[in-house]
């Protein structure tokens, strides 16, 4: 998947968790600042595992703490 595809998927996923419109999710903002708690950030990596069909560290969203950074990392990996 391309970075753009992963980014879009993440925007949808975060919007759903936070019960907000996807256009209100800023991919540059840190997850914590968007309103995601640490458990939700870990859960996100679990859903990403299914999407990308690869094992991911549960702490990935702490190391790459925004939608943009995380999608960039995953597209390169």
């Amino acid at each position: 998947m391309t970075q753009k595809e992963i980014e879009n998927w993440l925007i949808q996923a975060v919007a759903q968790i936070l019960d907000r419109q996807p256009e209100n999710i800023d991919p540059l903002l840190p997850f914590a600042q968007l309103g995601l708690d640490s458990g939700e950030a870990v859960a996100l990596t679990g859903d990403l595992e299914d999407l990308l069909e690869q094992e991911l560290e549960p702490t990935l969203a702490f190391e790459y703490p925004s939608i943009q950074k995380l999608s960039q990392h995953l597209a390169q990996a």
Partner: protein
Amino acid sequence: MNQIHASENFAWAEILKQQARQLGQQDAFVLLNRRVHIAERLSFAAFAQAVFALATQIAADFQPGDRLLLLYEPGIDFCIALWACLVSGRVAVPVYPPGDPRTRERFFKLSKAAEASGVLTTQKIRDQIRLARWLLPRLMRLKWLSSDTFKTNNPQQEWPHPDYDQVALLQYTSGSTSEPKGVMLSHQSLQANIASLTQARLIGREQAQERFVSWLPQYHDMGLVSGVLYPLVLGSISIILSPLDFLQKPVRWLQAISDYQGSLSCAPNFAYELCLKRISDQQMQGLDLNSWKLALNGAEPVRPDTLRRFSERFAAWGFQPESMYPSYGLAESTVFVSGGVPQQAPEIRVFSQAGLLQNLALAPTNVQDQRELVSLGRCWGQTRIEIRDPQSQQVLPEGQIGEIYLSGPSLGLGYWREPELSQARFQQTEDGLWLQTGDLGFLFEQSLFISGRHKDLIIINGENYSPSDLEQTVEQAHPDLRRGCGVAFSIGEPEKLILVQEVRASTEDALSEIKVQILAHFAQHWHLPVADLLLVKAGVLPKTSSGKIQRRRCRAMYTKNKFKDLKS
């Protein structure tokens, strides 16, 4: 199977030897990886030897009573270190690895507060920390011991009984960063609590042999007792998963129970909710939860709705409603206080909401006036419970709501180096030591019900937060915020965090910027989503005559939309 009798103290070393003798090569601890496959295992015989070797080294390096930080990833190394501290009479202080920048400050505060002499850890964590230069200066004075690589000749096999009244463990309570509070648990507290668990577990199932499954953090009371201490005392297998692996994919918990025939597994209510929300039917395919006889639900409010939905949903995969085991407990009393009778479906009672608001447990007068509460059973072992009037301290009869007080040998000795707080909460009376729990509840037909929390505590995802800590973080975010004029509270189920803060009159044009700064500053300190942040005019928040914010009134005002946000 070796059963421990209530009120009978035992030497930790003797238990280890006995299990090694009788159970030898059987698995004592099994660590699972993310694929729920066995990553590491240790037999009872090997475990005992590993503990004795480390205890020998610890006894050479440290004095009795010295506090040692236990700095480990979830796993078997932690179990060895904890048992080695118990056996050698050095005080274990379980903490989590300081990997996350947000928990660093807490780690330092805790190591300082505990006046630790040393750190037990693995070579891997030690290497990681060596690379992190910011850590070195503050931890250099501590003596480090890598428990997985040290070598010792002739591990000592004979160990004396512990001093049962001495501190065995400092249990730091979760959540709050500003003042970490360490409950001093004695050897006696731990063993008495184990005895009460044993008594509760065995009612109606005298021959039960357990297989424990736990993903709970090992450094917290529930994970520590149910994953590290109790299984070995019983001679039962303990199957361990990492908390992060559970949070990443909750199905791993149920898969571990299914694959390894787990019979006893504990978790706070939020974990059962997480299973309902995040496990798909497809993920459950082929799993069988029939072996799970005690699904202990505790450490945070037990919700009737969660019990019902979990039992209904997972019945299709062999889960039995009577396995749900709602319970009450807290670190100040080691962990376990009360619970029902195993293998009997949880009891959900309907009370009058209006009655509860007047501190009385009454039958509902009509269908609108209903509130369901889950029975948390009765006290086991030698634990005694009293419901007292919060003002007069008078003991209240059944059916009246008051503050829950506890007494008995599971109680801790107080908070480490906090004499005032200890005296306030652990009250020495003619009738022995009584703990003021801070929880509100009542007894009804001899069962305990919790109706609220006394201390405005905020519990989100199983972590306790003290509102004053959160308020402090908010007011420090910007110079134009009024000090001591902010409030943090939670609403709804699951709880959501609400922040309301007064601003100075002069700053009204930069409010959006201030909000952004508050949220950014808050996120640096807390792993906690803010559901709503309101900035309000000076003087809006209700205060007591002594100038303290009235949090309950603030909450009520918020839910009635009484606050006007200056920004909107």
